[in-house]
């Protein structure tokens, strides 16, 4: 294969699709950003501008100074992080059981978990609210953590179970033959290989909790508000406050992406760690 031809293949099979896909994925984000720095007159102007003539960062200042946007961000973070950790812990145990043991009631249990997520949540709101109130956790982060966990556990159990079932069984068997017991084999052999999958599942749980609105508006008050509720407070009967809303969007997106930037390294590390031992 000639060098030129190889470059051409690379461009066609790699660069082009990458650029196209990323264009599609990122353009709306770019548009959110542009909107956040456009003055209103330009927003509804006769011509669409792709870079504002008079960019203004007032909205960002207003969000932090007048609106104390840090508080809902902290609340969201506490809720999402707690829900992620709790779900991951509980779901890993269950997924391990489902993938490594054959026991009575296994299939019905798995199907029950799946069905749990098929039912629309709007209909559960009133009783859930009453439950949270009786538990005495209404308007605390716990109410949200508990309700998110309930709806992320089933998915996470299934996801992790899928990953665990794809992992070659030989890894563990070797350790078990060597005289390790199951918990030891799990922690030493499975867990390191599972890290990428835990990261992926963790991101899934985190996002769910980060973006959820219906429960959040019911189970929080001024003190425990999360981002989706605060953002929606910016849309009144007199229209959308585009600048604040989009600026709020930008500052909720960026920290999460940065967090993932560090987490994604684990996506590769896990494999190498496991492969050495396997």
């Amino acid at each position, binding site marked *: 294969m000639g060098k030129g031809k190889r470059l051409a293949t690379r461009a066609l099979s790699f660069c082009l699709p990458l650029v196209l896909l990323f264009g599609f994925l990122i353009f709306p984000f770019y548009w959110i950003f542009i909107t956040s720095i456009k003055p*209103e*007159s330009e*927003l*509804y*102007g*006769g011509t669409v501008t792709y870079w504002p003539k008079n960019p203004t960062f007032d909205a960002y200042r*207003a969000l932090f100074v*007048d*609106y104390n946007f840090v508080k809902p961000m902290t609340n969201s973070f*506490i809720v999402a*992080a*707690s829900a992620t*950790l*709790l779900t991951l*812990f509980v779901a890993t145990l269950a997924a391990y059981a489902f993938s490594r043991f054959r026991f009575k009631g296994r299939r019905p249990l798995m199907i029950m978990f799946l069905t749990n997520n098929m039912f629309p949540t709007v209909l559960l*709101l*009133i*009783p*859930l*609210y*009453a439950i*949270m*109130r009786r538990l*005495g*956790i*209404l*308007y*605390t*982060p*716990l109410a949200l*953590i508990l309700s998110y966990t309930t709806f992320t556990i089933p998915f996470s159990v299934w996801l992790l179970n899928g990953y665990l079932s794809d992992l070659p069984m030989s890894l563990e068997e070797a350790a078990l033959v060597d005289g390790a017991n199951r918990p030891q084999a799990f*922690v030493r052999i499975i*867990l*390191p290989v599972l*890290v990428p999958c835990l990261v992926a599942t963790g991101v899934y749980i985190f996002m769910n909790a980060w973006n959820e609105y219906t429960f959040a*508006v*019911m189970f929080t*008050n*001024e*003190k*425990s508000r999360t981002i989706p*509720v605060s953002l*929606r*407070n*910016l*849309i*009144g*009967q*007199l*229209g*959308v*406050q585009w600048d*604040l809303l989009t600026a709020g969007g930008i500052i909720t997106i960026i920290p999460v992406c940065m967090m993932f930037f560090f987490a994604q390294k684990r996506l590769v590390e896990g494999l190498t760690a496991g492969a050495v031992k396997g």
Partner: protein
Amino acid sequence: MKIVKKFLALILMFALCMTIASGCRKKDDESSYDTATGEPIEITHWYWADTQQYSAKMQDIVKEFNQTNGKNIKVTAEEYPWDGGGYSETLFTAAMGGGGPDTASWKLTSTPLFVANNLLAVLDSYINGWKDKDDIDENLYQVMRDAGGSDNIYVMPWNTQVLYVYYRPSMFKDAGVSVPKTYQEFLEACRKLTRDTNGDGKVDVYGFGMRGAKGGQEPWGSFIYARGGDFSDFTTDKAVAGMQDFINLFKNGYVPPTAPTDGFNEIIANFKSGKTAMTIHHIGSSVGMVETLGDDVDAFPFPSGESQWTSMGDTENVIFEACDNKDAAFEWVAYLATGKGQEEWCKATGNVPVSKRVQAMPEFQNNKFMKVSIEGAPSAGIFPILDTTTEWINTIWPNTVAAALAGQKTAAAAMQDLQRGLYGG
């Protein structure tokens, strides 16, 4: 074993979060009041804010009330998203789940639902013993009674908005149109104002900014009445004729093609950007209009045809049945209805005050939009408030009208659907 340690650390972190969370809760419990020992009487109030300025204003009013009420009442106001009307559902879910606030800002349309479930406190005895009772027009109390469907008052008036037509004087001049005095002249104006102003063969200014999305039933009602129809029966020939006029405006291209999904945002944006020459809304948007258009915006009441009707927007406050200190709660909603709260709120939002004392203040007498609002007030009314009204407004009206605009339904068929949706059968 590094992994194990990490895992343990994570669990520890989680436990920490939990402790923090439960710690917060304890603080909440401690601050609960006890009237016997002179602790303040706490009232929780829920409201939505149409802009951030309104929200800040509400917090100022609360602060002032807490400092000046002299009865040791402490109101805490919590903002909830308007969410296109989802506010009422949030409130309902909380109240049905045994929680919710003591008092809340309100829209009349939700009244039947809450009354049917015994969630609202009856206010008659409080209002009858209230020194400011006569500061509010008896008419308004009657509207409140009708909304509850009984002889009791469940809802405390706060402020109203009367819909009228905004127009661009400069465009009227260019097109040689004068302010319509009759409904026919209004329809004629829609036609004449639809123009291609830059000669590229495409229409760039539309006569009228039609609201086809949720909320559009309010301006639409004016068309039905102008033809002599009314809301007791949508299927009369006169009501259908009004609907036909509405459809024709779209069919003939006198309104933007986006009309079926245009909501508040779009009609206002189109008007401000000069895409439409007229649109219908209330005084709440006047501040923004003047900001953008300066002197080149004015208003007139929706003109009379065979009959005249315009929609009265409303905001009220209610006290919940579950509230433990209804006397204190009434002090608060009364403060909003006729006290300093009324003045402050109406000045900030431009809404029409319900207090006659406040209406008479010069700030309200000298505003041109307020004048048009007051001019339109005699023909202003509300939609029949039944337990079906909310669903009718949220889904039935917009979807039925969209089908009629698209030509899939005749005016008569659409009106029959609307009739069934509101009155059943």
